[in-house]
């Protein structure tokens, strides 16, 4: 298996893409720490997959102390961190810049950008001291394209591409690779929430709009995103760093 005895830390591990990534990495032999805001969902997944393969920790990724604790808990449990999937994120309220408040923006940026920065800040020294690793940040199709009514989310997903590129250049010398995965619309709870947000805001049928402009004509499945995370987490991608990896059904064409 590709990741025998590698240690993988995944934030947002209870979400749709996070859960698929957990299953994928465990199936490839990795030890996985599941981090999320609570442990209800992640503990159930740990119970299912077996506590010898994985464990869970509660974290608010926007809070420095909690991120530091998440990292030290992972190292204490599994002895290091080889792959870090900075996947936690929120979509925020759907609505135009004029119609949404700045508290909504602050919350999105705190989790989606500050949270990723904090994760890098505490994880990368562990990887450096161990001689290397792979960091995968979940950006989005919204990280390379604009769309009405999601300015906060799109801004945050653009921002992590810049963060990723800087990090990649800073830590290449330590054998650490840093990339983003950019999913298009994927069959998850977050997407249902976005669909409801668009409907509530009178902004139209989001799913129909997305499917109409996605060349493959459908939502992606979480597993299809996890496949790319596995590629980037494995040594198959040993020459990939600083890259933006679209998995969007062709949407960004």
């Amino acid at each position, binding site marked *: 298996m*590709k990741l025998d005895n590698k240690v993988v830390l995944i934030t947002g591990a209870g979400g749709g893409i996070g859960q698929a990534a957990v299953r994928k990495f465990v199936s490839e032999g990795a030890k996985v720490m599941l981090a999320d805001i609570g442990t209800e969902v992640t503990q159930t997944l740990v119970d299912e997959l077996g506590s010898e393969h994985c464990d869970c920790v509660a974290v608010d990724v926007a809070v420095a102390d909690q991120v530091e604790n998440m990292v030290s808990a992972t190292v204490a449990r599994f002895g290091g961190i080889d792959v870090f999937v900075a996947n936690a994120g929120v979509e925020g309220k759907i609505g135009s810049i004029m119609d949404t408040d700045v508290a909504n923006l602050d919350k999105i940026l705190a989790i989606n950008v500050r949270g990723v920065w904090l994760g890098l800040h505490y994880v990368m020294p562990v990887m450096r001291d161990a001689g290397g690793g792979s960091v995968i940040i979940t950006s989005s199709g919204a990280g390379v394209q604009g769309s009405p009514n999601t300015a906060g989310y799109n801004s945050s997903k653009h921002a992590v591409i810049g963060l*990723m*590129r800087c990090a*990649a*250049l800073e830590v*290449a*010398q330590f054998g650490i*690779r840093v990339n983003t995965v950019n*999913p*298009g619309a994927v069959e998850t709870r977050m997407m249902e929430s976005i669909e409801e947000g668009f409907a509530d805001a009178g902004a139209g049928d989001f799913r129909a709009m997305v499917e109409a402009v996605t*060349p*493959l*004509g459908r939502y*992606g*499945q979480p597993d*299809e*995103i996890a*496949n*790319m995370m*596995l*590629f980037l987490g*494995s040594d*198959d*991608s*040993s*020459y*990939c*760093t*600083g*890259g*933006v*990896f*679209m*998995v*969007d*059904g*062709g949407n*960004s*064409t």
Partner: protein
Amino acid sequence: MTFDFKDKVVLITGAAAGLGYACAQAFAAAGAKLVITDISQEALDQAVENLQQDGTEVLGLLNDASDSADVGAMMAALLARFGRLDIAVNNAGTATPLQEFHEVGEAEFDRVIAVNLKGVWLCMQAEIRQMLKQGGGRIVNMASATSRNTYPHAAPYVTSKFAVAGLTRTVAVDYADRDIRINAICPGNVATPLVVSLVEDLSVLSTKHAIKRLGTPEEVANGVMFLASDLSSFSTGSLLEVDGGWNAI
């Protein structure tokens, strides 16, 4: 990742050496049946012989990807032997010696565009016509880190690789509804025979990449295999960077 291409028919152009040959080895190891092309008969014969030693079924075809009659003959020979085409890797490419733009001869520009752009165009047309008959297929085009970035004194090459990226993305949209996925791979510098022939001091190239070394042909082949496999089932029209961080700089 464990790739399984057992009995898939895979066409790789420009496969007697360099990245194309690395792809041929990788697909062969994963169980594929190969059709490889090149413009050098001698190099082609050697590559076919090497690949066959491990029991792989290989058809070698002397072929100029920029010649439509040649491309037609290639597809006819491929179909006569294997009857179908599952995966195509349009890899054949060339470059001019590095020189300032105002000194590039018209014939040199024409040659690079003919092979790198028109060659991909002609091959994709032939491949897609067959894939439409079959009801699907996978295409991976060899683009470059210079599909998005620049390289000094390499205007014909960079121009051609920007064009390949645009062509890939556009055609991907056209056939997304017919189960033909089309993506490109964007390698950084690898010490292939082509690169070695153009650059005297390879160490200069390392500085282009955040990972201070050149890539290996195998690292590029890994990306090609990912795009050709079902693991990338939600990817089309994408540009997969295997460039050691070149485009982050």
